[in-house]
């Protein structure tokens, strides 16, 4: 196969992402863990203690 042809069949970066189940798993855990769980817990931890 020529170099030009091999370039033609190279999958797009987005397709590579969609074909990588383990990377999708990582993203699917990391995004809600940061924006929902950790940020939410941070809010609660930072509630001032009543004096």
């Amino acid at each position, binding site marked *: 196969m020529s170099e030009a042809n091999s370039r033609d069949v190279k999958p797009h970066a*987005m*397709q590579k*992402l*969609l*074909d990588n*189940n*383990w990377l*999708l*798993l990582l*993203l*699917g*855990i990391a*995004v*809600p*863990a940061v*924006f*929902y*769980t950790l*940020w*939410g*817990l941070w*809010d*609660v931890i930072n*509630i001032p203690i009543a004096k």
Partner: protein
Amino acid sequence: MTTTTLSEFRTDPVSGLKVNRTANTLVKWNAFAAVVFLLVGGIFGLGVALTRMPSVQLLSPEFFYLALTAHGLINLAVWIIFFEMAVLYFLGAHVLSNRLATPRWAWAQFWLMLVGAAMVAVAVLGGNSSVMMTSYVPLTAEPHFYLGLILFAVGALIGCFVFLGTLVVAKREKTYNGSLPLVVFGGVTATVIAVFTIVSGALILIPTFLWSVGLINHIDPMMYRIIWWGFGHSSQQINVVTHISIWYLIASLVFGAKPMSEKVSRGAFLLYILFLQLGSAHHLLSDPGLTSAWKVFNTSYMIYLAVLASMIHGLTVPGSIEVAQRKKGLDTGLFTWLRKAPWGNPIFSGMFLSLVGFGFIGGITGVVMSVEQINMIIHNTMYLPGHFHGTLVAGTTMAFMAVTYWLIPVVFQRKLALAGVAKLQPYVFSLGAWVFSIALMGAGTMGVQRRHSDITFAGQPLAYQYPEIAKGLMDMGEIFAVIMTVGAIMFIVVVLASIFTGERIAEDSAPWPKVADADVVFEKSGKKHIGIGGMEAPGTFVLAMILFATIVLYYFINFKYLSTVWGMS
């Protein structure tokens, strides 16, 4: 080196799929357990419905909370997750002509989930664990209630990794080329969300179990709510993704349809993976400890990216059906393709009713109630059960029922029994679910509280009189809950009759006729174009515009109502 031999597979005469026998047995047992739990949970649900009916009030308050706990856990978690395990094994093995990666672990999944569900059931029926599905601390249940939930969740987690491992096997043994089929990619999406869900569940249920046996002194209720809803709401997002995958599957099975754009549909699933789980925040919009930035970012910004994904699926599934129908000759007018669809086939009618019910009832109301201001009107009211019966019953459960009618001949190798009952079932069930949901949301908008056995507050020191119309809506809703139950019983009777008495389909019987591929039919027809005015799916475009208009109108109605609640003068 694999020890798989050809005798482990059979070629299914109904679908043409190469079926691994071990995987098939696991699909059967998970699906069968799911249907049995649907029946058990449904009986408790009927008890809840007939108690919430002001004119009936069937159960005592004590038994009402027991029944509500059992109904919530069994129907929201057990029935649905058992069925999802069946779907995942089906997608990983049957659709990919593949074997299961680790059947022993798959059996461990089944037994752990079964034992866990049984432990929870024993705890709830014992009467000392009526803490409802949310089991908010400091409400205390028996330790085996939490332990049962943990075992159930661990079982489901094992099932997820068996599915992911099965995909590795399929890739290594080259049972498919290129990217995964779209429906299997939907399964991957559901699995990713499931792993986050189950890890969240473990993070909060393990310490709660330790608290229930006295090894931990205190669990902060606000922290509990945050982490629990990462489990509780995300578990329902697994359902959404699974039933959308089923929509794509049924469009392909019944019409020989292909997605309008695989790339766009996969992109929509990616949006789900990234953003759908953030919707859990809409349960916490009234919690004082969380900042508005957190609430608004999660519900009013990020969740709209997941809503966009739902709209894409809601457009492409009927769009693909329209394109297939037009390619097969139904290319006149706006809605001929829909009018002449096989409405007597419960696989299609169930799927399409699921799509419409989920979009117009569950979907729109879910989006609108995620707005922080509007949420204040309906928080903790009957609106919530109305909304999630729109998503989980009218949407998910209806889709699962529809695909079951196809799975019975393929997986159980039996012809569908009581075909006349099956034909009617989606209509009866959807009618009940739709009106029930809408009526409860109406009552909730008038302030009727959820989680209370008696909306008249008879004998209570702080009595409150709801408008008579609210009581009427509750009565009407619960009458339709009975109709919904009749629809569910029809489904269960058809499934059990088919499995135990249906005509057996021999393995060597002649292949069943296949649905023609729409593209092949179109190519043979010699036509060049379909659709109207350059649009291939104009009917679907009109339906999508109706959905958009309904969302906008519904927003305005709710903000108008909010303005009357907070009068300014």
